[in-house]
């Protein structure tokens, strides 16, 4: 591989376009389209008794109104369970429009189509839906108590009971020198991408084809869903993800009701129809994540080494399970982190509540797992009066133990076998980076300023880049332009840059010649999607393989022309040349022209190519097994996920008068194998840390007991501003993955994973009270410190010289 660009901090080539407003987002498309708006349920659980549209009919500009009664065929059936699982024993999904019963506030009941969105909302406002309210289940406690149920045929509200164990945990606990049991909770949050969801559909009645733009993370699957649900042939449907203003997981779910209803309306009306989700809709009708209660029992020896771990998780999955139990499985299997755990048992109960569905949000169950594991480490350290870093170090998997088999089954049904890593290396870099040794000095210094200083850390291992596959297509045009296409989508991660870097490096062409297209089913029909930190691993390797195929063909053709052996050729700056023989060369673009024996001299390139034309009468112009054109398509399909890792440390200062929490230092050591572009990886880490801090200190979904979301706006759902996000210092470690040609691991979600764990640890260290519920606000911290029943840490007792461990 020519490695000139691979590994370089190349500036993101998409930024100039996006920052100067030349991006093309969903709502930029179809200015003249009809607009859809939805009447959504104001109740968390109710029977729909009557829908009266009478008053809406005289709104000027109204075009159509659809209710469940208007849905036919597959559209009238429940939405699919995308990822079934044998332990998801009671999967339930909603309908595109409510069929008789609504199960959460925000569920779509009526679709209105009008000349513009204003008119559509005017009409929607006049539609009177009569509901008969039903008992509401909100929160894990209420769901477990099962006084009432979300779905009548699931009386205990348990959708799934997921269970994995690596040995006999009870005897192992009984034989442990020490055990600890505790419970903790983590609240709901959500992806909240800047751009909400959105769909635009255009039907061509003459050739019976449908073009759909969707702000999605999975255009190929949306295409298949639309074709199936609207009973169209797959070849008549194309789906394109335009520029997408963030996804973070919520746009991997599909088909959203609107992704089916908007095309349905476009076909029925024979007109372009568009729906652009607004912020309030996004809060109450998209997806949330994170809400869990965890009960942990851990056994350990006098040195703090784990002997057994038994975890019970209650997971709030909202009203439906379209995305299966991916999130709880990830919690269950990624909880173990970088540690060697002799015996592990985990049971997750996934519970129905009358709230918005719960599907992956960046991190996807890992922040919760990390919270369980890392806080366990903190508790062991506290109980044994050991340094928290030292307890972790003693339990780490060592570099000589790879591949390390946890004997667990991952979300993709494949074994959790860590491919490579150096966890002691991470920890060592982290303690150096944050100055772990000097925390006591800093604590004293801060005390002198009237501040309570505390430090915390958290480590994680993240399974990234799951299969089944991703593909890439690379084509060199006679102009020299190199077209790269992959089916997975982009939401601002920088794919245009990194895929171009990879192809430019593999092919030996200048990066400016490379043009990257993603998420467009017209260009690439087979793809899985962008989630699970998989784009670089999956499509990165796929486009690399495709580029290698092109390179091979180019060398073969050039070898013919230059009368050399292909192995003596190299490609540099878009020119194929005989190594060490100046002058014996041919531009790659000319090779591209030569690759097509039909050569009308439309342009200079074709004319020039004629001078190289060879005349071999012994073979047909296109040899058997060959194809015209300098292009290659290839797929990358991994055996299993590759496991990235990292370690974060946070230092906080708490004001003991106002209980404000100031994150004064945030350090990250990150290992995602070979790095394609360090600047982009650091950007991903920064964004992840921002969302980690958000989940730890700011964001929560405040549902009341009636299932009303109290903070469904950016006024009250506190996404941190730049002013709230700490400066992040990053150190890298690179342990390449042996599983893929480029040796890379995923980096997209990493930054968010340890936030809550590290910050809970730091706050606890600062105030000396056990922090078992995240996020935590100053007001809640005030409640915690003055509650006489809240647990004091042993460390705080020792610091105070009392030894008290209340």
């Amino acid at each position, binding site marked *: 591989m020519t490695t000139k660009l691979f590994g370089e901090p190349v500036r993101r080539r998409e930024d100039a376009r996006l920052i100067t407003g030349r991006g093309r987002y969903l709502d930029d498309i179809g200015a003249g389209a009809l607009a859809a708006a939805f009447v959504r349920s104001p109740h968390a659980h109710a029977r729909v008794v009557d829908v009266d549209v009478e008053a809406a009919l005289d709104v000027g500009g109204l075009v159509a109104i659809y209710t469940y009664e208007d849905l036919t065929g597959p559209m009238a059936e429940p939405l699919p369970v995308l990822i079934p699982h044998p332990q998801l024993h009671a999967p339930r999904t909603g309908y595109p429009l409510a069929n008789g019963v609504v199960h959460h506030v925000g569920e779509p009941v009526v679709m209105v189509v009008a000349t513009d*969105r*204003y008119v559509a*909302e*005017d009409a929607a*406002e006049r539609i009177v839906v009569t509901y008969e309210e039903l008992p509401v289940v909100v929160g894990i406690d209420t769901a477990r108590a099962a006084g009432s149920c979300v779905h009548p045929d699931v009386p205990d509200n348990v959708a799934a009971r997921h269970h994995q164990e690596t040995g006999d945990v009870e005897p192992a606990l009984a034989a442990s020198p020490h055990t600890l049991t505790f419970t903790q909770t983590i609240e709901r949050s959500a992806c909240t991408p800047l751009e909400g969801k959105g769909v635009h559909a255009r039907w061509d009645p003459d050739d019976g084809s449908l073009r759909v733009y969707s702000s999605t993370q999975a255009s190929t699957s949306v295409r298949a869903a639309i074709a199936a649900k609207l009973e169209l042939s797959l070849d008549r449907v194309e789906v394109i993800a335009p520029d997408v203003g963030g996804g973070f997981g919520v746009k991997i779910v599909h088909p959203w009701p609107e992704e089916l209803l908007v095309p349905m309306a476009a076909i029925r009306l024979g007109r372009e129809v568009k729906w652009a989700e*607004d*912020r*309030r809709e996004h809060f109450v009708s998209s997806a949330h994540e994170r809400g869990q209660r965890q009960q942990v029992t851990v056994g350990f020896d006098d040195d703090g080494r784990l002997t057994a771990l038994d975890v019970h998780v209650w997971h709030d999955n909202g009203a439906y399970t379209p995305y299966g139990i991916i999130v709880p499985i990830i919690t269950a299997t990624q909880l173990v982190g970088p540690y060697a755990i002799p015996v592990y048992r985990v049971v997750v109960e996934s519970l129905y509540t009358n709230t918005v569905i719960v599907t992956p949000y960046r991190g996807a169950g890992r922040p919760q797992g990390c919270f369980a594991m890392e806080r366990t480490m903190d508790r062991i350290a506290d109980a044994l009066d050991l340094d928290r870093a030292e307890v972790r170090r003693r339990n780490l998997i060592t570099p000589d133990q790879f591949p390390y088999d946890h004997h667990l089954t991952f979300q993709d049904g494949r074994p959790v076998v860590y491919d490579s890593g150096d966890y002691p290396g991470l920890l060592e870099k982290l303690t150096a980076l944050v100055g772990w040794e000097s925390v006591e000095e800093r604590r004293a210094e801060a005390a002198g300023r009237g501040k309570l200083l505390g430090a915390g850390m958290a480590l994680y291992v993240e399974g990234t880049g799951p299969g089944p596959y991703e593909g890439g297509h690379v084509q060199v045009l006679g102009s020299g332009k190199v077209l790269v296409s992959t089916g997975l989508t982009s939401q601002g991660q920088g794919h245009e840059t990194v895929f171009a870097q990879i192809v430019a490096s593999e092919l030996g062409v200048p990066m400016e010649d490379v043009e990257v297209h993603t998420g467009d089913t017209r260009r690439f029909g087979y793809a899985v999607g962008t989630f699970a930190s998989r784009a670089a691993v999956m499509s990165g390797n796929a486009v690399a393989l495709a580029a290698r195929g092109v390179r091979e063909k180019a060398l073969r053709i050039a070898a013919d022309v230059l009368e050399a052996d292909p192995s003596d050729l190299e490609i540099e700056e878009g020119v194929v040349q005989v190594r060490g023989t100046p002058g014996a060369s041919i531009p790659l673009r000319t090779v591209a022209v030569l690759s097509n024996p039909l050569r009308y001299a439309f342009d200079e390139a074709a004319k020039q190519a004629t001078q190289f034309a060879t005349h071999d009468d012994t073979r047909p112009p296109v040899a058997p097994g060959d194809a015209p054109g300098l292009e290659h398509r290839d797929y990358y399909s991994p055996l299993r996920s590759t496991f990235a890792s990292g370690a974060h440390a946070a230092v906080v200062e708490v004001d003991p*008068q*106002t*209980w*404000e929490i100031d994150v004064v230092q945030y350090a990250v050591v990150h290992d995602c194998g070979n790095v394609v572009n360090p600047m982009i990886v650091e950007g991903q880490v920064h964004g992840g840390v921002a969302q980690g801090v958000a989940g730890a200190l*700011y964001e929560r979904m*405040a549902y009341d007991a009636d299932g009303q979301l*109290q*903070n469904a*706006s950016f006024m*009250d759902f*506190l996404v*941190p*501003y730049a*002013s*709230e996000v700490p400066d992040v210092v990053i150190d890298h470690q690179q342990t390449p993955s042996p599983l893929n040609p480029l040796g890379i691991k995923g980096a997209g979600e990493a930054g968010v994973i340890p936030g809550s764990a590290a910050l809970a640890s730091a706050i606890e260290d600062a105030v000396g009270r056990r922090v078992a519920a995240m996020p935590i*606000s*100053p*007001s809640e911290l*005030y*409640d915690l410190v003055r509650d006489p029943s809240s647990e004091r840490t042993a460390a705080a007792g020792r610091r105070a010289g009392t030894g008290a461990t209340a």
Partner: protein
Amino acid sequence: MKPPPFRYADPGSVDEALDVLAAEGDGAKVLAGGQSLLPLLAMRLAAPTTLVDVNRVPGLDGVATAPAGVRVGALVRHAALLRDGAAAGVQPLLARATASVAHPAIRNRGTTVGSIAHADPSGEMTAVLALTGGSVTVARPSGRAEVGWQDLFVGPLETSLSGPAVVVDAFFPALPDRSGTAFAEIARRKGDYAVCGAAVVVSLDEDRRVAAVRASYLSVGLVPEVHDLSEAVAGKPVDSADWAAAGALARTLVDPDTDLHATADYRRLLVGVLTERTLAEAAAEAAAKVTGE
């Protein structure tokens, strides 16, 4: 999140605005910077029949600073007041408090008078108007009248103004002699409405003893209130006054509510802390002036 239909008027004078307001009746609303009104419309929490946009009315965008105080015209943006050094010289709280109003982009559009007419008890400038004993000039078809802050604020987002009325300016009296002020607030995120905030003024006598102490708070009551905390510290030499005692007194005087972001207890805690902190700062400013006399 699109507003329902409304009519729009673009008057060229206050009188013309009043004519439209009178003709349109109760459904008409004045539109100033739109930073509070337009979100309400977009969320369909308000559905005025007519927006009377006063942005093109000449003569409303001036800040008039005189020894007696600062008169802020209805179209003066938060950002302009923030940068007005002369106004800050006469009443330092104007710049100090405005700095905490929202974010730069919102301060560029939102008006100080609009935020007072909006009567949000979480707003900075409502508290400042109250603390300084300010008033607004209200134009009605019958003529102009000065309305004191106590008569203006009647409830959260509710003023005593009814019928056709345009607030043409707000008047903030000057800081008295031998006095200092301070402003502080605690918000969940920088630029958010405060969880709690305090604006204070400390006045000293010629002997550097505390003469009077008053405070007004943000986000702790239904309407802006001014609390006289003098009894906790009056007569004490400024350098040994027990500001914590004033803070403790303040805590007993307020009656905050619980919301998503803070409990009533936490707000009460902050009232005490912010009172103590701001009073110390304001007293230092006042003391420096007395020493300088």
